[in-house]
C-alpha cells in the first residue's frame, strides 16, 4: 500500500491550515455581509444628504403602532414627517410624505396600516411585500390606497377618502347589495351572489372583468354586465374597485378605530335612535352618515310618528322603514345584528 506516514502527516497539517483559512475567510465574509445591511447604507446616504445634525446617532427606529404591530419603516424612510424634505428632488426613501398626515402621526398610525407590507422587516423587498409572499403589496399605489382608510374610518366625508366614499355609494346605487349583501355572513335572501368580503383578494383585472363581463371569470354567472355604466365613467369603476378592495382588509382593532366604528355600529338597533327616556328618540335627527343625509326625507321618523316615538316594548318587530335600509347600513358598518326578515 502506497501510504507514506510522514508525507501524510505533512499533507494533513497543510490541509488543516488551508481549511482553517477557508473557514476564517467565510467568517469574514459573513461578518462583512452582516455589517453591510440595506438599512445602514440608506442611513449613510441620508447622512450624506446633510439631513442629520452632527453627532446624532441613527439606528433601527421602531415603535408599536395603533394596531399593535411593530413598525420599523422609518429606519429607512427617515424624512417622512419632515417638512424640509418635501418635494420631488429629494431621493426616495427619504422624501417627506406627499399628502398631509394630519392626526395619523399623533395617533401612531405608522405606515403599514395604510400601505400594508411587512413593517417589522428591514429589507425593502420583504418590507414592501405582504408577509411571506415576496410580492409587492398592491396597496402601495394610488389611488387604491384609499381602500385602507376603511380599516379605521367609515367611508364618510373626510378629505382624502372621496373615492372610497363614492365606491360605497355606487355599491348601493347600482343595487349590488341586492345579490351581494354584506349582512348575514355575506349572503342575502337568495342563495347566490359571491361573498364580497373576500373578493378583494383577487387581482384588479379579475375584479374589473367581473363587473364588465361577469361570464369572463365564471361562465355560469347570472350577474348582469355593468359595462354600460362604466363605459363613459372609468373613474367610477376604479372607485367601486377601491370599495371592493376595502372590504377584504382587516378592520383594525386599534383604540381610535373602536371609537370610530362604534359610532352608529348599532345602526338599525332600536336603541340607536330610541335611546331617550321611555323609548323616545333622542331629539334631533342629526347624522354624519352621508347615506342617511341623502335620504333624509324617507328616514325621517316624524313622518310616521308625528307625536311621540313608540318605546321598545310597544314596538311589534322592527321598524319597517329601517329594516328596508339595513342593507345600506351594512355597506359601511360591520357586525350589524341579525333581524328577522332583513
Amino acid at each position, binding site marked *: *500500500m502506497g*501510504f507514506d*506516514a510522514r508525507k*501524510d*502527516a505533512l499533507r*494533513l*497539517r497543510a*490541509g*488543516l491550515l488551508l*481549511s*482553517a483559512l*477557508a*473557514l476564517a*475567510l*467565510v*467568517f469574514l*465574509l*459573513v461578518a462583512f*455581509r*452582516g455589517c453591510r445591511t440595506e438599512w445602514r447604507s440608506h442611513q449613510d446616504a441620508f447622512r450624506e444628504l446633510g439631513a442629520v445634525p452632527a453627532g446624532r446617532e441613527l439606528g*433601527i427606529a*421602531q415603535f408599536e403602532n395603533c394596531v399593535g404591530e*411593530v413598525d*420599523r419603516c422609518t429606519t429607512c424612510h427617515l424624512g417622512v414627517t419632515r417638512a424640509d424634505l418635501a418635494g420631488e428632488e429629494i431621493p426616495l426613501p427619504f422624501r417627506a410624505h406627499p399628502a398631509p398626515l394630519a392626526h395619523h402621526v399623533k395617533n401612531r398610525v405608522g405606515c403599514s396600516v395604510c400601505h400594508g407590507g*411587512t413593517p*417589522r*422587516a*428591514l*429589507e425593502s423587498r*420583504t418590507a414592501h411585500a*405582504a*408577509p*411571506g*409572499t415576496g410580492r409587492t403589496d398592491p396597496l402601495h399605489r394610488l389611488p387604491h390606497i384609499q381602500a385602507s382608510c376603511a380599516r379605521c374610518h367609515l367611508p364618510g366625508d373626510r378629505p382624502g377618502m372621496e373615492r372610497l366614499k363614492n365606491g360605497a355609494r355606487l355599491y348601493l346605487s347600482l343595487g349590488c347589495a341586492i345579490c351581494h349583501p354584506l349582512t348575514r355572513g355575506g349572503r342575502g335572501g337568495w342563495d347566490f351572489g359571491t361573498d364580497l368580503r373576500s373578493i378583494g383578494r383577487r387581482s384588479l383585472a379579475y375584479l374589473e372583468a367581473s363587473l364588465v363581463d361577469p361570464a369572463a371569470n365564471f361562465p355560469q354567472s347570472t350577474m348582469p354586465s355593468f359595462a354600460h355604466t362604466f363605459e363613459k365613467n372609468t373613474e367610477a369603476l376604479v372607485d367601486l374597485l377601491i370599495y371592493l378592495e376595502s372590504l377584504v382588509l382587516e378592520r383594525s382593532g386599534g383604540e381610535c378605530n373602536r371609537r370610530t366604528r362604534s359610532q352608529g355600529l348599532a345602526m338599525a338597533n332600536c336603541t340607536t335612535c330610541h335611546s331617550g327616556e321611555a323609548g323616545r328618540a333622542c331629539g334631533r335627527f342629526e347624522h354624519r352618515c352621508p347615506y342617511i343625509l341623502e335620504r333624509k326625507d324617507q328616514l325621517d321618523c316624524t313622518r310616521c310618528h308625528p307625536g311621540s316615538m313608540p318605546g321598545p316594548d310597544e314596538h311589534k318587530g322592527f321598524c319597517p322603514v329601517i329594516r328596508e335600509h339595513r342593507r345600506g347600513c351594512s355597506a359601511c358598518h360591520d357586525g350589524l345584528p341579525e333581524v328577522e326578515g332583513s
Partner: protein
Amino acid sequence: MKPSFFSALLSNLRSLPGALRSGLRPGGDPAPALGQRMRRNFIYHLHVLKVSARTLHPLTTLGLGVITATLFFVLVVTGILLMIYYLPTSRQAYESMQDIQYAVALGGFTRALHRWAAHGMVLVILLHLFRVVFTGSYRRRELNWILGIGLGFCTLGLAFTGYLLPWDQLSFWAVSVSTAMLDNVPLIGGCIKSLLLGGEIVSSATLLRFYTLHVALLPAGLLLFLALHFWRIRKDGGLAASATLPEDAKMFPAWPHLVLREAILVLLVLAVVCLVSAFVKAPLGVPLDFHTPGNPEKAPWYFLWVQEAVSYSSVVGGFVFPGLLLFGLLLLPFLEREDRGVGTWFGPRQCRRAVVVALAASVLAFLVFEALFVTAADGLDPLARDLFNPATGMLVLAVAAFVLGGWLTGSTRGAFLSGFVVMLVAVVGFTVMGLLRGPDWVFYLPGEAWPGGI
C-alpha cells in the same frame, strides 16, 4: 510597603507564562512530552491508538458520522442563540421570528445556519444509515446499531418539532398533515397524537410541547445516545475497524492521521454550511391562517414518502409499510450475522450482483406500479385499493427480493441487501412522487404549471 513584597511579585510576574502553562494542566505537569501525552489521552478515549489504512480511506465511511456530529454542534450553538429571541407562544412566535430575521444582528444568518444544518443533518444521518447497511458494518456492533436508530429518531424528532416553531402557514399545516398520519397506527396512534399535540388539533398547546421537546428533551436524549454511540465505536474496536483485517496489516497512529483528517472535515463542513447560509436565506412563510390551508399541504420532505404512501392506502402506507421497514431495520443485525464481506460495499460478489438486479427490477416495477395505479385507481373500491397499490406492490416485491436474493446468493446478507434496496427505491420514489404532487394531490411533471386556485 516592604521591598520583599515587590521583589516577590516581580519574580512571580516574570515566571507567569511558565506557571500558567504548568499550573493549568491537570496534575500540574511541567514536562512537555508527558503533557502532550495527556492531551492525546483525550483523543485516545475516542479513537483506538492505531488504525488501518482502510479506516483512513475517505471512501470507507465517507466521514458521514463526523459530518453529522459537526452539524449537530452547529445546531446546538445556533439553537441557543435563537432561544434568546424566540417566544414560544402562538401570538408572539411569528413576530419573534420576524425580529430574528430582520432586526437582530446576524439573526437571519443564524436562522439560515440552523435551518440548513438541520436539513443537512437529516440527510446525512440517512446516508449514514445507508452506508452502514450497504457495508454490513452493523455486524458485531448490534448495540451501536440500536443506538444509531435511537439517534435517528431523536434527529427526526428534532427536525420535525423545529418545523412547527416558525408558526407560519407552511409549518402549521405541514405538522397538521404529518400528525394526522398517526391516525393510521392502530391502538396507540391516537394516544401518541393527542399526547404530542396536547389536544386533537395543532394549537398553542402543541407549540409549547414541541418547543419543550425541541430545546430540552430531544437534545438531551440525542446527547446521551451520542455519547454512548461514540463510546461503543471505541469499545467495538474503533472506527471502521474491520473484523477481517489480516494479522500483519500495517497500522498507523490515530494521531495525526485519523484525527487531523477529522479536523479538516469538521472545518470544511463548517465553512460550507456557513457559506450556504450567508447566501441562501431561510424561508419565513405567510403568517398562519387557521381557516385556509394551502392546496396541497405537504409534510416535511423526510416524511413526504409516508404522506404519498398514505394517499394510496392509509392502512398500508401509514402503518404496514413504515412499520415493516422499521421492524426490519431494528432486527437487521440480529438476523444477519455473516462475517464474510463485512466492511465491503454491498458485500461479496454474488451479493453485489443481487443488489444490482434488485435495483433494476425495483425501479422498473415502481414505474409500472405508479403508471398502473394512476390509470386504474379511480375504479377501485377501498379494499381493492388497499391490496393493489404501489406501496403494497413494492412491499411484496421487497419480500420477493428478500427470499430470492437469499436463495440465489445463499446468504442472509444477500437477502437483506436485496430487500433493503427495494424498500429504499420505494421510499425515494414515493418522496419524488410527493414532491411532484400539485393541488388536490394530482401528479404534475416537473416544470409543468399547476392550475391556479379558484
